[in-house]
């Protein structure tokens, strides 16, 4: 090998910590993202530490204190069965965000919304990658499949699935996944169509790499930005959907603290002067969804701004 005195020394690069900090600091640049993050974190923390934040159990009924407004004993008031609303809210957040009860004895960390979106990501990305990269008749088949799925209004789809399979946490996860697949697949497909024109994909092809390798190792990691932001929005949609399902009576079976069904139950008492049972869960749903939206918006705005 020829002696080289001309080896280029890489210029001093910042350390890994600094790189990571730079990435995270994007969040702090955007006020919007920050506000969103605070709201979301609030609910996550509250859900995690639920038992420490309230003396009551969410199912504890107290007939002496029905439909009460906020007071010293019950910070948010009580519902028609005398249950503390605050406790029901924070325990309700658990199932959505923190813990997924798969069966009586087995649970997974993460919450229904998160798991649902994750499952949707898994299947949807695969479909999108296949359609976008392989193209041809595979793409045609995938697109028609997605079209069929998108033909259903979202809520209807949810209702059909829950009605057919029953209302349990896992079924809710499935429903969220199925509803999310078309959107995710389309997004991934369009990202794939763009990425596959790059030279590094050509380079992988000239090495004779398999289709699966190229799809999941070369293409997918480069699509993660928009996918992540989309996923966050979907968590919000999922929560909203679960609220609607609960409202329609298709949510988790009682006495589970389900925000949607809380609203449904509390609806009757609004006009009679006790709006609390309906009000607080509505605000909770709205705030969480808005928080996720703000966070996603702020992030995408920031990453586009200094392009």
């Amino acid at each position, binding site marked *: *090998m*020829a*002696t*080289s*005195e*001309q*080896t*280029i*020394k*890489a210029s001093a*690069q910042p350390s890994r910590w600094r790189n990571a900090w730079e990435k995270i600091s994007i969040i702090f*640049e955007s006020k919007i993202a920050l506000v969103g993050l605070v709201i979301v974190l609030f609910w996550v923390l509250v859900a995690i530490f639920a038992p420490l934040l309230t003396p009551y159990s969410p199912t504890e009924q107290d007939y002496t204190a029905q439909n009460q407004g906020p007071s010293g004993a019950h910070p948010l008031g009580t519902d028609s069965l005398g249950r503390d609303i605050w406790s029901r809210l924070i325990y309700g957040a658990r199932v959505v965000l923190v813990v997924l009860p798969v069966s009586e004895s087995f649970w997974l960390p993460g919450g229904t919304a998160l798991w649902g979106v994750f499952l949707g990501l898994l299947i949807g990305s695969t479909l999108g990658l296949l359609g976008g990269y392989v193209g041809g008749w595979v793409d045609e088949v995938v697109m028609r499949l997605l079209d069929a799925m998108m033909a259903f209004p979202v809520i209807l789809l949810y209702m059909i699935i829950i009605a057919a399979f029953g209302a349990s946490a896992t079924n809710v996860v499935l429903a969220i996944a199925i509803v999310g697949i078309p959107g995710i697949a389309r997004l991934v497909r369009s990202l794939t169509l763009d990425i596959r024109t*790059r*030279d*590094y994909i*050509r*380079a992988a*092809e*000239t*090495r*004779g*790499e398999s289709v699966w390798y190229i799809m999941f190792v*070369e293409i997918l*990691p*480069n699509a*993660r930005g928009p996918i992540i932001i989309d996923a966050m929005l979907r968590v919000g949609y999922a929560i909203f959907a679960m609220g609607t399902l609960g409202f329609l009576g298709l949510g988790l079976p009682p006495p589970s603290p389900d925000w949607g069904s809380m609203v449904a139950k509390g609806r009757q008492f609004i006009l009679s002067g006790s709006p609390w049972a309906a009000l607080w869960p509505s605000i909770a749903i709205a705030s969480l969804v808005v928080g996720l939206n703000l966070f996603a918006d702020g992030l995408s705005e920031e990453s586009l701004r*200094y392009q």
Partner: protein
Amino acid sequence: MTTHRMQSPVLKLEDVAISYETRYGDIEAVRSVSFEVPRATTFGIVGESGCGKSTVAFGIVDFLGANGKIVGGSIKFQGRELVGRSQAELRKLRGDQISMVYQDPMQALNPSVRIGEQLAEVLTVHRGISKDEAWQKSIDMLQRVYMPDAANVMGRYPHQISGGQQQRVVIAMALLNNPALLIMDEPTTALDVTVEAAVLDLIEDLKRDFETAIVYITHNLGVVARVCNYVGVMYAGEMVETAAIEDVYGKPQHPYTQGLMRCVPKLGTTKESSRLYPIRGRVPAPKDRPKGACIFAPRCDYVTDKCQNERPLLREIRPKHSARCFYSEQIDAGTWQPPKGLVPELASEVEQERQEPILQIKGLKTYYEQESKSMLSLVGMGEKQYVKAVDGISLQVPPGKTLGVVGESGCGKSTLAKTIIGLETPSNGSAEFLGFDIAQGVSERDQQLIQELQMVFQNPDSTMNPSYSVGHQISRPLQRFKTVPSNQVREEVIRLLHAVRLDGSYYDRLPRQLSGGEKQRVGIARAFASRPDLVLCDEPVSALDVSVQAAVLNLLLEIQREHGTTMLFIAHDLSVVRFFSDYVAVMYLGHIVEMGPAEAIYAPPYHPYTEALLSAVPIPDPTVAQKHIRLEGTVPSAMHPPSGCTFHTRCPRRAMLPDGGKICETQEPPWRYNTEEHRIYCHIPLEELREMEPVVTTG
């Protein structure tokens, strides 16, 4: 007594500084730029990417975007100060007196409005004349820019005309209001060489007739030599030298300019005179530019302590020739010697084990099926249409040599490369590599074969996967092809990094932390990782700055010599291929029109297309005499290539044949063998071809 009045300059910049607001604070893109543009003069601003030349151009009319601002200095247009004016005032000026032409004509043209209307609108809006009058004037202007069939073009949409014609329309639009100043930002960079030559001719013509002052931005030193009277050289946001054309090329005073002259490809007559010497180091990022030192010091061969501690001013070395250097008078470019290690000491060529050609292609055809839009094709009965990208190519490459394939866009060179490497499947013909058949896609090839045939890509920004580190990406082929045992992979990657002159610390870097030149080196390391016998390079340096091109080309040469690899080098520029190739093939519309040893291509006899290509290449030397052959028309569509000789529609030498070249339309030309290895695909007899004069003669 002079025949010209001593008049004040049309444009005068003094000490201009422009900054951009970013997340990290204000970044100074350009500082202390000063120059004057007298009337009826073309002032070229030349420099590499990131030097700030476009920023200066946009700054003159304050097209800097939301986060750019002029933070210092003065810009005077015809005595009027432009800095600090409101957008409304500037808009008025822009319309009447200052016009801009961009690199991409579609930035100025509305794709959904007819050309005639867009042109007429310029006149009706600014001058308030009637639409009919404006229409007629527009036709006149189109004829002035040599637009064939001007009246017809007025009724077409922009996408219906070619890139070169679009640029003519944009130039016509810019000149309609007879501006005093025309700013052109790389107007011909996106055009093919032959089209570019015609547009440059046009610009020179117009300069004479309209007496407009022109500021011409480009990175191409050859183009500057052709159209400009004065040149300003920019480096890292500063103007480092300004002079008349002859002075900048003949006696450059700043070390950077001198370095540039050495690394620009020229159409030299010998291989030695075509040698390229890169400039070591890299351009500092805007935030790393020192305020109290010479900005070129880290890369300068003549640097002293003074240069590191004091910032030189742009001072006049001779009348009308200024440079930003303390030692201009003492530096003599003629005595410069390359510092050790700058260019590779080439190992003598490796003895080849096999003597037969490593790559043999016969009658290769790659056609793309075009989706027909007719109703019949919906039911499968329509006539199939094909884009005949590669239409019968035969060539051989001896082992250990480099074959340069040159042609303009649409000639099929990229398709040829893709077919050889297996990203496309050929429709016909045979191709053999190492004796094995490769007329199939890559998925059908044997793993052993794949690893012997690798590719280096054109675009450094997309050649690496942004999500993985450099080391990871180089080790992938090593792991896949099991070139070395798995516990030695890391070592081998470091060795490869050293081979491409990168430090081992690059292993953990991500592509976005690398410069264009560095990314391209990693791409080369990756291609050579599996120790292939043949490497295809698809325009590997076209997207790089000139000073980096030289380094990468030298690197390829070095690696090739060391390993005895055979190379197929694709380029659109004959001058780049010159010092690099052993053999050259010139392609036009899917055919090879001339092929032979490199020296043979650049001297007569030529194929008429080669002659036209050589005449069109802008040469970075204003004293050189170059023939002025221009091709009429545009490249025909590959779906309906002309009959007989595909070049007959544009051939300037058809008249040399009896009947004005009737035979060219009807029969395919024969191969004329000038020597055993040099062949030309033409009807014109060899004796007449041999009588052609050389295209380039040094004056």
